């Protein structure tokens, strides 16, 4: 066999071997976790920390992140760093010897396999709607057999705001005026970023009795076109409380003067911790939006 053939064969063998190795790595599968009493929880999610405390499980929390600042009792729990999974060490998580880790799948999903292979149970949160919040509260309660407390928490959340008729997004056009107030939630302004239908903030706005002007976009945090903001003419603009922008800076933006919310000075800031955490205070966030709509 000549040299060229030999080369092709060796290359093929290397490629095949690598492919088999890779498949082997993925095929290892998840280790089964025995059902046992969970007593040491590490929470990598601020919303998760709030939920744990609200369900009365705060005593079991052994570590949290820097951003887990509510309720005040959380501050006395040890912190292991920033929110982004890439900025704290997996070792720090393990140093607290948890048997359950509460994490956000979009931020720390890459840690799940590692933790499970070490025998640690992982509660992955991935919230795209208000219903997801309730579903996860119930799932968490199931782990600790506290179903009653979960239902009480959900009722508390729902009682925090006034129930309103919900807009039927199938029939409503975002370009025209209708009986629902149109709200624009500005995540960022360079480039313009707002929330779409897979963000729970979209649900917060809808539950408050209004419509998110970008609810026709499926993505959670899409970059949106400035001209669409103007064309869809929101009557209320919401900003996170820590944003440096306000009505004045928005009114200076070229072309924005024709927007109803600017003309009526309806640019309102909402506490970012309330509205961007899919946790037990989401009901208060909905009420805050309702108050802004008045």
């Amino acid at each position, binding site marked *: 066999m000549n040299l060229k053939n030999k080369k092709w064969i060796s290359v093929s063998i290397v490629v095949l071997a690598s492919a088999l190795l890779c498949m082997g790595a993925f095929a290892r599968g998840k280790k089964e976790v025995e059902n046992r009493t969970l007593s040491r929880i590490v929470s990598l999610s601020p919303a998760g920390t709030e939920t744990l405390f609200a369900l009365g499980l705060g005593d079991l929390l052994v570590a949290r992140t820097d951003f887990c600042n509510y309720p005040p009792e959380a501050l006395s729990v040890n912190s292991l760093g920033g929110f982004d999974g890439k900025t704290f060490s997996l070792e720090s998580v393990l140093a607290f010897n948890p048997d359950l880790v509460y994490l956000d799948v979009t931020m720390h999903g890459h840690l799940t396999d590692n933790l499970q292979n070490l025998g640690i149970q992982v509660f992955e949160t991935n919230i795209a709607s208000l219903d997801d919040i309730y579903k996860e509260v119930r799932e968490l309660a199931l782990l600790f057999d506290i179903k009653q407390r979960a239902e009480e928490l959900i009722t508390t959340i729902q009682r925090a705001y006034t129930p309103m008729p919900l807009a039927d997004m199938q029939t409503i056009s975002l370009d025209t005026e209708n009986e629902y107030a149109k709200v624009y939630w500005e995540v960022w302004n360079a480039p313009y970023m707002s929330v779409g239908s897979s963000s729970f903030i979209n649900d917060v706005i809808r539950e408050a009795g209004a419509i998110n002007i970008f609810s*026709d976009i499926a993505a959670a*945090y899409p970059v949106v*076109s400035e*001209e669409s903001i103007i*064309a869809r003419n929101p009557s209320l603009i919401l900003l996170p409380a820590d944003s440096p922008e306000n009505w004045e800076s928005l009114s200076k933006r070229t*072309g924005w003067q024709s927007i109803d919310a600017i003309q009526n000075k309806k640019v309102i800031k909402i506490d970012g911790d309330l509205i961007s955490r899919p946790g037990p205070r989401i009901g208060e966030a909905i009420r805050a939006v309702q108050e802004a709509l008045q």
Partner: protein
Amino acid sequence: MKKPQRANFSFYLAILTLSLIVLLLFFLSLILGSESISLGKIATAFKEKDYSSFVLTIILKIRLPRSILALLSGALLAASGTVFQGYFRNPLADPGLIGVSAGATLGAVIFSSLSLFIPIGAFFGGLMAASFVYLIAGGSKTSTDSSRLLLSGTALGVLFAAITSVLLILKDKEIYKMYLWTQGSFNAKGWNILFMVLFPSLLSFFLMFLTTKKLDLLSFGEKSAETLGLNLQGTKLLCLTSASLASASSVCAGGTIGFIGLIAPHTMRILFGSRHKKLLPLSMLFGSSLVLFSDILARKIAPPMEVPIGIITAFIGVPFFLFLLRRGRQDG
């Protein structure tokens, strides 16, 4: 006498055609956007002259400055690519290669984390990076080795990118915003950005046009060019300053947009040859067309979302470029 005339004719024809294409794309950029507004509505709005109507607001206040910025940015990127490729005598030279884009990104991230106006940070970051490269690799009077400059630029570019990453990790709230910024976009760019970059851009164009004869001489090699009377140090200063200024301005205008600086001059060179006096304006027109076209696509692909323009330039630029390379190879 016939050959020069024919060559000139095809050049002027190309300039005319490209100019018409640029004008057409500019016009399309005004009437097309995330919001579908029919031509009839536009015509009516202009006739009624109601400047507070949302049609005129969108076209004159949002799309007009944006289109001008896209046109300008394309010309800046293509021109700086032409000059860099000519100076380094390397067809792969790209404004990003010398570290300007990485420096601009670093400047943008620093300004963003300090809540300062990001485009200014980008502009000065780009210039600072170019100065660093020049100081480190090209400072001494005897050193005019262009490959040394290129290597230093690449190395420093990597360093700037690393520093940027460290900053982003420390300030993780900035990560997503900056990720979008590095993809390039004309979203939220209006008249204020245009006024900011106008003077440096025009200055850079003027300076780059001064480099054309020098770049032609340089293509014979540095030694030969020197014996033909070229001042190597002066040429280096002129080329690098003008091209870096153009590059920094374009990053200030639209973020880091890749491939235009590589593809536009290279394409024009394959089609029309390497005389820089012709190559520069042809590249600029082609660059403007590419960026205008990409910006229209960016708004039309998934409205009302906007796709970062850097992604689009990669998707249309690269296959186009590969096609031209193949054609060049078959002919030659």
